[in-house]
């Protein structure tokens, strides 16, 4: 954990420690998005834990504070696209990793929210009211993407954003393909090993005495004094 924090701090400091390296753009991007990311996630944590949870319940006032954090985080992200808050490097160019991160984030958010909403409807029991929030979020993100693909922002033209959305979809397709390929290759090894394992030996059915003994233990644990 300590190594992770130290590593993260070093990556965040890379625009100052190794400014000439193109990879320091990654640290530059993380520096820009860490604020809204923490706000969004912490806000959702506060909202979730101010509801009906058995342990670690927060006060009902935290629900509104969490909601405020969440909204501020999301508005911050959208301002990073539409206004001058966009991550710009010292050279005056927009950080190229931002143009990879933001379309990827929006597309993934829309897909995951829609999928989770459908999962609640088809797998849950009478959850139509709850799934509406997820459908709303998915729809809102879709509208944002379509708007950004048609309306120029202060730093990015809609045409450029369109290009990056298409490239992000190519990225996501590639990530899915690569992950599936890796999972299939490792599954093959596990499958061949499991197939070669001898079948477990069957044991004899329990005797009458053993059954009576088990019934006694179960009734002593389940039954009351009466």
């Amino acid at each position, binding site marked *: 954990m300590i190594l992770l924090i130290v590593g993260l701090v070093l990556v965040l400091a890379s625009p100052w420690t190794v400014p000439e390296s193109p990879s320091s753009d990654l640290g530059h991007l993380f520096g820009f998005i860490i604020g809204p990311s923490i706000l969004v996630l912490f806000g959702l944590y506060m909202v979730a834990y101010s509801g009906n949870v058995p342990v670690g319940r927060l006060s009902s006032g935290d629900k509104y504070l969490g909601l405020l954090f969440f909204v501020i985080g999301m508005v911050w992200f959208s301002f990073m696209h539409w206004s001058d808050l966009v991550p710009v490097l010292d050279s005056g160019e927009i950080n190229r990793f931002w143009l990879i991160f933001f379309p990827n984030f929006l597309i993934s958010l829309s897909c*995951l929210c829609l999928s*989770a909403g459908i999962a609640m409807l*088809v797998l849950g029991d009478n959850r139509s009211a709850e799934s509406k929030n997820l459908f709303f979020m998915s729809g809102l993100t879709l509208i944002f993407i379509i708007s950004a693909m048609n309306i120029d922002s202060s730093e990015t033209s809609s045409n450029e954003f369109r290009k990056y959305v298409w490239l992000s979809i190519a990225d996501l397709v590639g990530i899915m393909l690569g992950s599936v390929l890796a999972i299939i290759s490792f599954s093959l090894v596990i499958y061949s090993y499991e197939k070669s394992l001898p079948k477990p030996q069957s044991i004899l059915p329990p005797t009458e005495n053993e059954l009576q003994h088990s019934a006694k233990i179960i009734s002593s644990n389940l039954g009351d004094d009466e």
Partner: protein
Amino acid sequence: MGETKKTSLKLVVSGLLFPIALILAIDYSMHGFPDLSTDNINPRIANSTLTAFILCSTFLLGNMYFYGESRNRPLAPLFSMIISILVGFGATIFFIKQGEMLLEDNGSVIAQLVYNISHTIVSIFAVLLAFGVAIGILFSTLTHSKSKISETKFYEEE
């Protein structure tokens, strides 16, 4: 029962793909294909496939050590390593055969390698953040929904 579960799963998976199809369909019908050639898109798919394969294989290889230990198969990680190297090698040859597509705007293989890793880290971070937000909204909604156990029914049972 099994058939219903399969249909539900198909619906959930189609929910994952539907926004992508919708965005592409709307954009294509409004503006046509963007200013991109297959020379731009194919290297992106090829590089992200190979980088995701390498990162995912490394993670799974770590798990194979635990698998090998628990199943008393000490050679399991070694076999997995050989299989993943062969698959990775095959995939790389397949992508290279499609043309000079693995180098994007980078001058050398090492520069491309470093760029691929940074690129994939950013993409994976974006997906993980989106996953966190979607799960957060789901749990927030569930914890604030009305309890499914009706109180009157509870008292009736008492």
